[in-house]
């Protein structure tokens, strides 16, 4: 097999091209449509990919945050601009909190072993399997009637943090196990306390793990619809919630909605291209080390 490495059958390249086209196709189509006027979308003589592109859809969506006033927008709907801000805030804060708490907990679980690792991975696995739909009813009830957090950012950040913690702890554990104990002992000899050891010695070493965990957490908080829909009100809604609210049964303005979808998809796409290696590491660590 090692002999034929250099000259692969061209069929494999064909297959790879087909696969790339299939998995990118829908995304590229969405991107193309987001630059299309609604007239062109409904005109069957206009090709799916070749047409006169326009920024009008993005201007309509972002009219509230643009520095100029787009000429074609008669009434500027501030919903999306606000939702975008909300989404960024909620996703960033909950990612930060989850990472901080997650790596502290993972460190304690690995280094101090006051609970068996079996128990921990069992519990995290159990928690991971809970579908958001199952949390819908209780979270709605508790947040509204007991915590008084409905419609607030605190409320939604609390849910997202809790939802992501098990997975983050699980992933980070597998990275912390690989940190050599001698490094920590050396730091202890030099008079560092446990907190210093953790933040100054351990954290810098597990940076790749933190990156993977951060991307997974951000993705969930950024994409989540169900709980956001149940908990948030008009002013605190995130982007996925506004998108679903703007889909009507008939007469969809496809250009505008695709532009909205594209804006929601851009951050995860960027992360994928920047850190695909970490994502794959995180994915395989999460599954293979079950």
């Amino acid at each position, binding site marked *: 097999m090692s002999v034929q490495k250099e000259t692969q059958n061209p069929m*494999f390249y064909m297959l790879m091209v087909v*696969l*790339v086209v299939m*998995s*990118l196709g*829908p*995304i590229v*189509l*969405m991107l193309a449509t987001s630059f299309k006027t609604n007239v062109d979308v*409904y005109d*069957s003589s206009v090709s*799916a990919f070749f047409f006169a592109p326009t920024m009008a859809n993005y201007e309509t969506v972002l009219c509230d945050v643009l520095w100029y006033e787009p000429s074609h927008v008669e009434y500027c709907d501030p919903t999306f601009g606000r939702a975008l801000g909300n989404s960024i805030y909620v996703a960033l804060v909950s990612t930060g909190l989850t990472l901080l708490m*997650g790596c*502290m*907990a993972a*460190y*304690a679980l690995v280094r101090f072993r006051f609970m068996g690792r079996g128990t921990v991975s069992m519990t995290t*696995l*159990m*928690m991971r*399997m*809970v*579908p958001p*739909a199952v*949390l*819908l*009813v*209780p*979270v*709605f*009830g*508790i947040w509204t*009637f007991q915590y008084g957090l409905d419609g607030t950012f605190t409320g939604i950040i*609390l*849910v997202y943090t*809790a*939802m992501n*913690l*098990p997975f983050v*702890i699980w992933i980070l554990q597998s990275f912390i196990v690989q940190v050599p104990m001698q490094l920590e002992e050396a730091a202890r000899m030099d008079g560092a306390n446990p907190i210093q050891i953790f933040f100054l010695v351990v954290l810098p070493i597990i940076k790749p793990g933190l990156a993977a965990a951060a991307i997974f957490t951000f993705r969930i908080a950024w*994409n989540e*619809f*169900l709980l956001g829909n*149940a908990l948030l009100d008009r002013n605190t809604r995130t982007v996925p919630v506004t*998108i679903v609210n703007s889909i009507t049964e008939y007469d969809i303005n*496809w250009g505008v*909605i*695709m532009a909205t*979808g594209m804006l929601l*998809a851009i951050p995860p*796409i960027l992360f*994928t291209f920047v850190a*695909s*290696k970490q*994502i*794959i590491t995180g*994915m395989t660590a999460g*599954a*293979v080390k*079950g």
Partner: protein
Amino acid sequence: MSIANKANRLTPYVFMAPAAIILTVALLYPICYMIYASFLDWSPSQRIGEADFVGLRNYANLLQDAAFRESFWVTIKFAAVVVTLEMIIGVGLALLLDRNIKGMSTLRTIFILPMMIAPIVVGLMWRYMYHPTVGIFNRTLKSWGFEGIPWLSDSNWSFVAVVMADVWQWTPFIFILSLAAMQSLPRSALEAAEIDGATEMQKIFFIKLPLMLPVLIVTLMLRLIDAFKVLEVIMVLTNGGPGLSTEIVALRIFRTAQEFQELGEAAAMSNTLLMVLMALTIGMFMYNKMQENRAVRMKAAASKGAV
């Protein structure tokens, strides 16, 4: 010294505390609450204390509810079909492409994209492609002279449509995991087989697949658990319709709570779904334990043999 000692002993608890508190307050408590709520007749305008305790009535209603049984069946069917298709395609592609091809890492990067994009957006783009007049599928079919397909308005086609969207989104997951597993297989076994003159097919069926089996089973379980959670894509595509043809349980829970305002019943459904998933997870965990034990025994046997 004693203070420092005490601090050291407290450290693990200090490190654990924030995560433990959040998990208790925002995950464990809600789940327990839900189990309790499934015994109540409860509407969203009521506090939970005001709701009447009705015992097992919600569950009894579920059992008699033909619509719930239907959506339970749809869920099982959906999960079975998508996981089978994705396993076959994903593992098949991994077997085919498990060689030194240039551009493999680019392919993997592109393959992750569908999983990273919001399910809502995935639903949107497939809904656009399935659109009866402006969608790319029907336009292509019509330009070739065929009839358009009623993707989302016919109850058989709509099931096909949601399955296709899910296969598009999640096959790469299985592909990437099985490729990773394949590339970490012990080279020695494959080389030995080569020396013995095994064909490509024999290598796949007698060496690669059996050695990968533990990872494949974990992958299958993870995907199966996730398939029960799918909600947003289907909601955007068909909202469960036409009729109940694509209404999986997660979506039914959402609609029972949101549209019909029957929180107690939604909680009972959630509980049922949770129990199914729990059984799957425990099954996966037991399998893992079994594998570990077997590996330990094999190692022990091997070292004994060496002595």
